[in-house]
């Protein structure tokens, strides 16, 4: 008797798009089911439903949070989101600009690399949250500047080192080749090095968004009157676990959307790289 081998799991075997979507949905459903079961068990065991809101309760909480505040006429949930995303965008934008410039300079010019690499490496080793106290003094306790500064400080050194490494890893042959086709040094950087490393740079930026969120929420915990971090602190003070969970889920959704956005940008900017498997 031969065993039916159709269902053998083979590592690296492809999967149909439909199955992939279905399995993704099943994954989400599974997490929700496990959570619902936990809530059920907790409440059955005499636990306070306040501390274990079910999915229905979370939906209600979402409704509460997105209600219009009668005093201001605004929805705090959305305005918090807008404020947080604004600071995140500023921090990311500034950090990316700074680290791309520095990283490229370090990757292309050996002198800059020799001069900056030790300093930047050392700065990258400072836990950014240790700088909160200093930044609050330097940039002011109120306002967003210290939060932006924290994000920039947190992501730039690592990003710059990474971009530098990637730029240095461009095969020397392609650089020599560009020169042999009549390129100037500027041409080599702009037309041979930068376009080649763009997908990897976008990937590193994508990974830097995670830490950027950490520093933003940490800064908002410490001091703010608006923002998602502030919303979570308020909910904590009122012991609204359901509100905290809604914020947390919202953070997950925002993070996923941003992540997907970077994938799209990468595909748009470097269509050649998405079909590439290896060197």
């Amino acid at each position, binding site marked *: 008797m031969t065993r039916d081998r159709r269902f053998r799991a083979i590592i690296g075997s492809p999967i149909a798009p439909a199955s992939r979507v279905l399995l993704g949905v099943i994954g989400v459903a599974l997490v929700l089911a496990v959570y619902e079961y936990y809530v059920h068990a907790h409440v059955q065991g005499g636990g306070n439903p306040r501390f274990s809101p079910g999915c229905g309760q979370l939906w209600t909480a979402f409704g509460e949070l997105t209600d219009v505040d009668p005093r201001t006429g605004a929805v705090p949930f959305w305005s918090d989101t807008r404020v947080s995303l604004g600071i995140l965008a500023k921090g990311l934008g500034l950090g990316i600009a700074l680290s791309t410039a520095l990283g490229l300079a370090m990757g292309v010019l050996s002198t800059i690399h020799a001069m900056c690499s030790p300093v930047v490496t050392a700065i990258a080793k400072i836990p950014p949250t240790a700088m909160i106290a200093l930044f609050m003094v330097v940039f002011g306790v109120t306002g967003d500047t210290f939060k932006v500064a924290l994000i920039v400080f947190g992501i730039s050194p690592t990003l710059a080192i990474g971009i530098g490494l990637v730029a240095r890893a461009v095969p020397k042959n392609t650089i020599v*080749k560009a020169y042999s*086709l*009549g390129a100037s040094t500027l041409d080599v950087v702009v037309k041979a090095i930068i376009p080649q490393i763009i997908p990897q740079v976008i990937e590193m930026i994508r990974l830097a968004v995670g830490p950027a969120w950490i520093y933003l929420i940490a800064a908002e915990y410490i001091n703010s009157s608006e923002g998602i971090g502030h919303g979570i602190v308020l909910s904590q003070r009122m012991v609204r676990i359901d509100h905290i969970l809604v914020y947390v889920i919202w953070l997950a959704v925002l993070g996923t959307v941003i992540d997907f956005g970077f994938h799209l940008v990468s595909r748009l900017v470097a269509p050649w790289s998405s*079909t590439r498997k290896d060197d």
Partner: protein
Amino acid sequence: MTKVAELPILECRRIGQRYRVRGGHQVIFDGLDVTIAGHQFISLVGASGCGKSTLLRLVLGSERPWKGTLRSNGEPITHPDRTRGIVFQKYSLFPHRTVLENVMFGLELSTTYLVQKWLTWPWYRSRHHRRFRDEAMAQLRQVKLDDHADKYPHQLSGGMQQRAAIAQALIMKPRILLMDEPFGALDADTRESLQRAIVRAFHDQQTTVLFVTHDLEEALYVGNRLLVLAKDPARPAAGSRIVIDQEIAQSAPLQAKETQELLAHVRRVGFAAPTSGPELDAVDQAWL
């Protein structure tokens, strides 16, 4: 007949190169003389480690010599420029450009000044782009790659990548085309068809070629001048010398008696195993 002597395409005078190794320097060669003038297809061959790729890098200008001078049309060679094309074994193509864009790369660089190009971008594009495109397509047709013009390099086989790299270099009409073991990573059939293609391009486009290979049969097939670089078996630490420099019949059948005799001769002179001596041991240890 008195005629003003044309400056040689390449003139290497008493050039030497050495690399730093642990405990001193490894001399690759010292005092080589090579002159290339006119429409020649030079096969530079030698056992691995004899310095043929080093010589090629010096000619290209991506490396500076330890001693001696290199000139191309009388101008000293200081860095790679568009008068000397290069095809490497790998990574000759830009991964972010399609085959056509790769071939157009040099043309796009050569015509305009940066400011003018940026100021008049749409106009510039419509005017020049079409001409570059036609020129590049013609070049691609020559290497039989016009059907794959819009593919990215990673979508091509190794042989097609090398064809594209050859087209990319040839379109600039370099004084000399340098090739560093260009077919070394290809299978036998692909290699043969590319050897025929490069010989055809040599005749069609009047390009001088310096072709580096460690495959002696390949060297004899493609070249019409043979340069053999080898170490002196008695004094390996002194570096390599040119042991054979002679004109040969291009595309001669391998089975022919003359070819076989030449093959045997080159094997004897250029690929002899070095006799071990104290000097060699010192070098070997230095390399470790």
